């Protein structure tokens, strides 16, 4: 067995809608995911994240290319692979009309797990769901539902789990909880592949792939991704950032300008002179502003990559 948990080689997925033209959801993607890492696919809606995850889980076959999961070829060993992976689909997809316990029992049984009682109790405890064992799944809060879903995907002790936007629509506190659980899952030796639209989640992963329009723009550790960004980012603070943005847009000397909350991020390709010049410009236009150089966030990198 090799050290990779997932290997994609030149994988494409083309959907043909009836009566419409073809849609290339995933376009020639090659990717290796190592054992024991938490790997995130990050990108905007419609980038192809879900399609990639569904192909890695064997829900849909690729139109082209080959996929290997836990060292096995997907096209030959699909049923064996299914016993080794767990999958959490994008929508909460457990049985709302079954209780917490019944949901876990069901997934244990169909995975042919024997004597799962102890593992179930462990997982329930771990997810802090023990007090709610008899409750119907549909009566749980969003965060608890997500934890129950995770418990169900972990009941058969998979080698790798695939999570498709697990924290979308979950409140920030539950999100933090969920991440704590994920790191313990990782420590227990289970690799994690997840898709997320949140860049702050991507920052926490071992490696991240930036995806847009079915292609991987970049794939590395978050630190390397940011370090590879050869540009200077200036954060500008002023009274009316919207007005400032309007004034500066279309100007020269910088690559992109984005509104980040009440601040502006301006990406320059070179010298400090250009930054000074921009601040001076704003001052003469009647918007006094202060600026400082910051290290780029994943978001800066991503936006700059996409807009290029």
């Amino acid at each position, binding site marked *: 067995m090799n050290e990779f948990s997932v290997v994609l080689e030149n994988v494409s997925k083309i959907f043909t809608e009836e009566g419409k033209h073809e849609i290339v959801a995933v376009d020639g993607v090659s990717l290796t995911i190592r054992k024991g890492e938490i790997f995130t696919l990050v990108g905007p809606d419609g980038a192809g994240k879900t399609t990639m995850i569904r192909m890695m*889980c064997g829900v849909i076959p690729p139109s082209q290319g080959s996929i290997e999961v836990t060292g096995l070829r997907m096209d030959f060993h699909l049923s064996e692979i299914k016993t080794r992976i767990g999958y959490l*689909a994008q*929508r909460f*997809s*457990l*049985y709302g009309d079954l209780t917490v316990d019944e949901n876990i029992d069901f997934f244990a049984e169909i995975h042919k797990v024997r004597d799962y009682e102890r593992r179930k109790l462990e997982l329930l405890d771990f997810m802090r769901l023990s007090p709610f064992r008899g409750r119907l799944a549909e009566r749980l809060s969003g965060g608890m539902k997500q934890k129950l879903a995770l418990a169900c995907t972990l009941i058969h002790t998979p080698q790798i789990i695939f999570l498709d936007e697990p924290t979308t629509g979950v409140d920030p506190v539950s999100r933090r909880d969920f991440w704590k659980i994920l790191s313990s899952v990782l420590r227990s030796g289970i690799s994690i592949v997840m898709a997320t639209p949140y860049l702050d989640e991507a920052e926490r992963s071992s490696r991240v792939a930036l995806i847009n329009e079915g292609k991987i723009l970049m794939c590395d550790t978050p630190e390397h991704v940011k370090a590879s960004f050869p540009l200077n980012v200036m954060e500008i603070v002023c009274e009316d950032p919207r007005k400032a943005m309007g004034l500066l847009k279309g100007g020269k000397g910088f690559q992109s300008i984005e509104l980040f909350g009440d601040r502006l991020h301006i990406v320059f390709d070179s010298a400090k002179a250009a930054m000074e010049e921009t601040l001076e410009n704003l001052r003469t236009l009647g918007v006094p502003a202060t600026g400082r150089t910051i290290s780029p966030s994943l978001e800066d990198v991503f936006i700059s990559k996409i807009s290029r």
Partner: protein
Amino acid sequence: MNAIRELMVKEFLQIRQDRRMLPLILLAPIIQVILLGYAATVDVNNIPMVVYDADRSVESRAYLERFTNSGYFTIVGFVDRPSEMDKYLDETRAILAMNIPARFGRNVGSGRSVAVQLLADGADANTASISLNYAAQITAGYAQSLIADQLVRIQGVSIPRVTSVSRVWFNPDLRSANYMIPGVVALILMIITTTFSSAAIVREKEAGTIEQILVTPIKPHQFILGKLLPFILIGFLDVVLVLGVAIIWFDIPLKGSVPLLFGLCGLFILTTLGLGLFVSTISRTQQQAMMTAQFFIFFPFLFLSGFTFPIENMPPIIQALTYGIPLRYFITIVRGLFLKGVGLETLWPQALALLGFGVIILSLAVARFQKRLG
């Protein structure tokens, strides 16, 4: 096997939780058979009749008595003017109006012919023609007895009469319920198995759980079996319930073999589950599944199977169409088993047709379902 059993257990747990489904499964068939047992009757009894008797003689009363004594007619009113009869007909308070002319008694007594006017509400053509038929029979009987009386009185001789003595086989009382309720058994079996199986599968799509199942080692055929088997059991349970009501409440004789009835129900279920599975592949929501089943399966089946309208009365083209309706064969089977007590030696062509439909529909549906999953 384990996976199938587990899916079934899950299905029953879900049904237990579903506050709408449980009464639907257990009570709806019973209520349906009771309602249909009473409502789905083509017997014509107690036809409301309004009378304008301008004669008010002994003879006219004797004539009217024959109507009331027959059991077919109930006189709901006597009116003083012929025009008032219209009102009764307009308001559907009466189906038949009778106008007995003045001097009815005297003319009858003196051997002259008399015409009695009958008006029938033709809005319901069936009932109208049946009531006119009855009325004509009663009138003919009355006329005949007049002739006989006259002859006896005048000449002291009797005249020969020819009457037909008819006996009805299989359903001697000609009760509609005997004929309709076996059909209701077939209908309920079809509705329960088709609707519930398709809804149960579509529900997994709606909830997204099917996606989760796909990543487990469950094979598509195990999934299909695990989803359909519970509804086979429920279908049979409902057959037992409906049979119970039919036999105990309505006193319908079940003359044929019970094991054979259940065996043939099993054959029919192949078709209904196949249709349910097919509906599930073309529907995204449970509501769509229900609508599709209702409009594209239940309605044509109901009308073209001979359940509501006798096939013999249909024009040849429509009759040809009915051969493509699996329910047609099953209706023939249940009626034959219930009322005539016939067995496979008579019903084998229908059984064979059901088997053929079942195997073809079910395998096409399974193939389509598996393709959709992939």
